[in-house]
């Protein structure tokens, strides 16, 4: 089935369901399964969010090529997940307890058959005894059909914080 045959309503429903499933994979720490939602050539990008005057808002979100919080390939994500299995990834051992709340989905079918999907998120992280972080932000994904399944080929995560009020970013968005 091609995108043109799917109504926007069905597309919205499918993608929304996809994101709900993804959030459960992350919060249930099924990271290897989570990795499967990405294409092999995925680019997972977290630019910095600058604090600039209104006239400079075109520079608020840093571009590719400037320093980012992360600019990762699938192998980078694999490395991060492989780390967890060693039992010595101290930032995540004991592991964080997370809750990903994904909302405000907007889907936009693209001419090449891919879909652009924008969501807002809140990610709560509780770690060790007393630490907690709350990340707010938006994700913009490009999704592609691979063997009849949606996969994310590009994910841009824009956090709302300037100075991150967190001891480390050890969780996935």
């Amino acid at each position: 089935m091609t995108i043109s045959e799917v109504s926007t309503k069905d597309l919205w429903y499918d993608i929304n369901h996809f994101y709900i499933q993804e959030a459960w994979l992350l919060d249930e720490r099924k990271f290897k399964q989570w990795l499967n939602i990405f294409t092999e050539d995925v680019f997972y990008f977290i630019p910095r969010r600058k604090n600039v005057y209104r006239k400079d808002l075109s520079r608020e979100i840093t571009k590719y090529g400037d320093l980012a919080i992360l600019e990762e390939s699938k192998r980078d994500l694999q490395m991060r997940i492989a780390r967890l299995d060693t039992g010595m990834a101290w930032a995540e051992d004991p592991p964080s307890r997370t809750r990903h709340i994904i909302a405000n989905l907007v889907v936009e079918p693209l001419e090449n058959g891919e879909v652009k999907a924008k969501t807002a998120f809140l990610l709560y992280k509780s770690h060790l005894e007393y630490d907690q972080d709350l990340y707010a932000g938006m994700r913009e994904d490009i999704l592609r059909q691979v063997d009849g399944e949606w996969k994310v080929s590009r994910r841009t995560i824009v956090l709302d914080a300037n100075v991150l009020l967190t001891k480390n970013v050890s969780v996935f968005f």
Partner: protein
Amino acid sequence: MVATKKYDVIDQSTGALDRSIFIDEAVYQEELEKIFGRAWLMIGHESLVPNTNDFFHTYMGEDPVILTRDNNGELHAMLNMCRHRGNRIIRADDGNAKNFMCTYHGWTFSSDGSLEHVPGEERVYFNELNKSELGLVQARVDTYAGIVFATWDHEAPTLEEYLGDARWYLDLSFNRRDGGQQALGPLKWMEPVNWKTPVDNCSDNYHVPVSHLSSILADEKVWGVPKRTAESQFNTEDRKHLFVNGHSLTIGEVSPEQPRYGHGVVEDNRHHFVKYQKDTLPEVEKRLGSKRARGLLLGNHSLFPNTVLGFRLALPRGPLMTEFWHFVLYDKDAPPEIKDALRWGLTGHNGAAGSFEQDDIDNWRSVTEASKSPIARRYNQKLVMGIGHSGPHEEYPGDVATRYISESNQRNFYNRWEEFMNAESWADIPIDPITADFDGTATMKD
């Protein structure tokens, strides 16, 4: 006048370190004055303010500071505090502006800090205000290889003297190319640690094979990065751990062919780094001389007081909080594949989400927080490793440990802390003479 010795926190003969310096609010306030109020502090890079009237907002300790390049191209580091009532006159990370208007009552300062305009100067101040005395508070500014430093203390030695022989080593990373370097960043986050712990950790090579083992193993498995085993770190033949004039350094003795980079070099891109080393070696040799260009690599290091591991800052935010700033620096004339690899690799390992950095934080935090309890404070930190096994070296300037893994830099760092904290003024703070042979054409500025 000889200062009364007040702080005696590190026992050089046993390595016992008094934990209260990590937690005591009064000590912290004194550090802001006696260390951050006196030392040359790294505040940015020339490439962050390339054009006239560019500004970059930064900090000296807890004090907000505006780095500007004025109309004449001169750099200024100025307290971000309106001279009327004290409002911050800049609230953004960076930008470009000829002048800065205070949002409270409208006093307006030019990009060189002078007070240009005061609303109602004639009618309510009766032309009696001496505007020339009310410019922004200026720090002394100087640069080394494009890196901008500033100090509030007008009696401080020159930056060149302050860096001293540490520059002989720093040149290995920061002064390689004629075209200079470009800074990117910063990426900023909050680490719940005392600022001294990440600084002292920079030459704690003891922690690497334990704290970072998961990332070392995963990097090897996924990226083919040669493993840093405990064995390779404990082996000292080709690595040095040394201290110069307040600054902690580590170096490696390497072949002329070996790429001078760590994070960012993986099996797939190694050939780019090998080629870059080969292509640039003649230029680096012209600039640094053959000993440094052909045989040495700079490892982890920190500059007193708070420049951490390359081009990063540990900004104090109270005894138990540090704002961390991560920048990436690379040679302006490097090819895109080198720039991309360094930006990706340095941040992926040492940024807020860095696979190495994230595993450091709870360790640093716990050793800091242990100091809270009066029971725990009865038991000192034990910086005992390698006492009596460091000294002058015939080839390398500084106090050189005979093992790469040693705590001599840590003992020296807390000794330097005492020297600043116990001094009445800069006149009481010792500065090592410059003795290194700065072979080659590279200077502080070119």
